[in-house]
């Protein structure tokens, strides 16, 4: 199981691509299947590789577009 995961609230994403370009492990991509209500292809988690470093959160200009989760032992 990966150490972390990121979740994009796709309606709040403006498709700027900053998170995608800055993610050190390349685990974020554009969701080319989806056009959100603002008319952008939002970013989405590829599904694996996230280390919960938080870099995407700290480069995303939208307050609520990204949430980063960390794996904790149950």
């Amino acid at each position, binding site marked *: 199981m990966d150490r972390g995961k990121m979740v994009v609230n796709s309606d709040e994403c*403006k498709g700027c691509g900053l998170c995608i370009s800055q993610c050190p492990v390349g685990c974020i991509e554009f969701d080319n299947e989806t056009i959100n209500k603002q008319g952008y292809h939002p970013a989405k988690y590829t599904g694996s590789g996230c280390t919960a470093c*938080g870099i995407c959160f*700290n480069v995303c200009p939208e*307050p609520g577009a990204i*949430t*980063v989760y960390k794996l904790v032992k*149950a």
Partner: protein
Amino acid sequence: MYEPILEKPKSFFDIYKEKSGDQTITHYCPGCGHGIVHKYVASALDELNLTDKAIFVSPVGCSVFGYYYFNTGNYQAAHGRAPAVATGTKRVNPDSIVISYQGDGDLAAIGTAEIIHAANRGELMTVIFINNAIYGMTGGQMAPTTLVGQKTTTSPRGRNPYNEGYPVKMCELISQLNAPIYVERVALNNAANRAKAKRAIKKALKLQAERKGFTFVEVLSQCPTGWKVDPPDSLKWIEEKMIPYYPVKVFKDISNEAEPYPEPKKIVSGNELLEILGIKSEEEKDLKKYEIPKEYRNPKIKIAGFGGQGVLLLGVALAQVGMMEGYNVTWIPSYGPEMRGGTANCSVNISDGLIGSPVVEKPTILVAMNKPSMEKFEKDMVPGGILFYNTAMIDEEPKRDDITKVPVPATKIASDLGNIRVGNMVMLGAIIEKTKLLPFETVKKGFEYFISRKNLIPLNEKAVEAGMRYVRENNL
């Protein structure tokens, strides 16, 4: 199991109710640095538990709508004036945490004076300065921080330092001043620098909460729209174009040595305030508003003479006594070029309504203590006005015949009383006797406010009486 470690900070509103259109997203362009810095400010407020105390001052620029987003106290200041608004805000709310958030057009062009002086006064505030090298909001014009050679809509061939000067380095300027305790420039170009930016903003707010002093954080921040580059490339632009000219570093940090500012004195009651202002509230309450005779009501008074004749003091006396009688008053001396010739004048309004301007251009009452004053101002009087002139120093008759003339040898009477300088008070006596503008009893009570040397009060009182007597005895 996964737990959220980074999510929308609580210092933001859930829903941006003030905003038109979609109330879940910001108004910023995709990739704009403003949103990132907003997040750092909001996270810092969350972490320091300062949200309830914070007052965010939005500027003019793309961040003009900062108040849509921050669940704090909010102001939106006139262009460039955020530090002035923040100064007032902090001074009347000393327990608040005040953030002056400004772009480079706002802070380094139209608001240069405000930021320099707020910094120099060491106001207890945090300034977040977004340097994006351009005017974003108005469509990409050149800013003071625009780089040499940078093309903008108003520098289409690139900024030319021989024409537009060099880009202004605000951290370098601010850190030269004594008062600021913490000045740092940060950048949004890479993860390490963004982490530093976040820490710097938090540190600045923490220092403010500790009452340490003025803190200033400049952020090299992308404007992909104004720069006409994709958001990911805009980060490279910061790195390659901005950082070489604007070094990213701490310019000043004396926060460890700095003593916290003393706790401000709190004014708890209205009476205490009156006491601090030196107003004797009880005494004033006893006074009933004196009825000024109809024909002299709302006078516009001009008093003019040589520098040493006490014309300014005569004006103060009239205004003070008028105020004690419950009227609205203004007194304003003239500092015009005529002062250089040794003549002085002042304007006084005593009004039962609001006073629009303190300046008197067309006097209803003119006091001329010397000849040049009469020559200069007689012609400005309104028809039916009343002219008091000092015949001891004016050997000419007034020219107008549509005014009332009251000749008083004020300087001579004063000289007979033993002090040539109380001619102004002789004139005061003549004025109140002739017009009944103000009661002598209140003038007597007023002396202590406008005569600073208390031992001279009896002489001044005598002079006023002598002026009154002169008018009575000569049936003027």
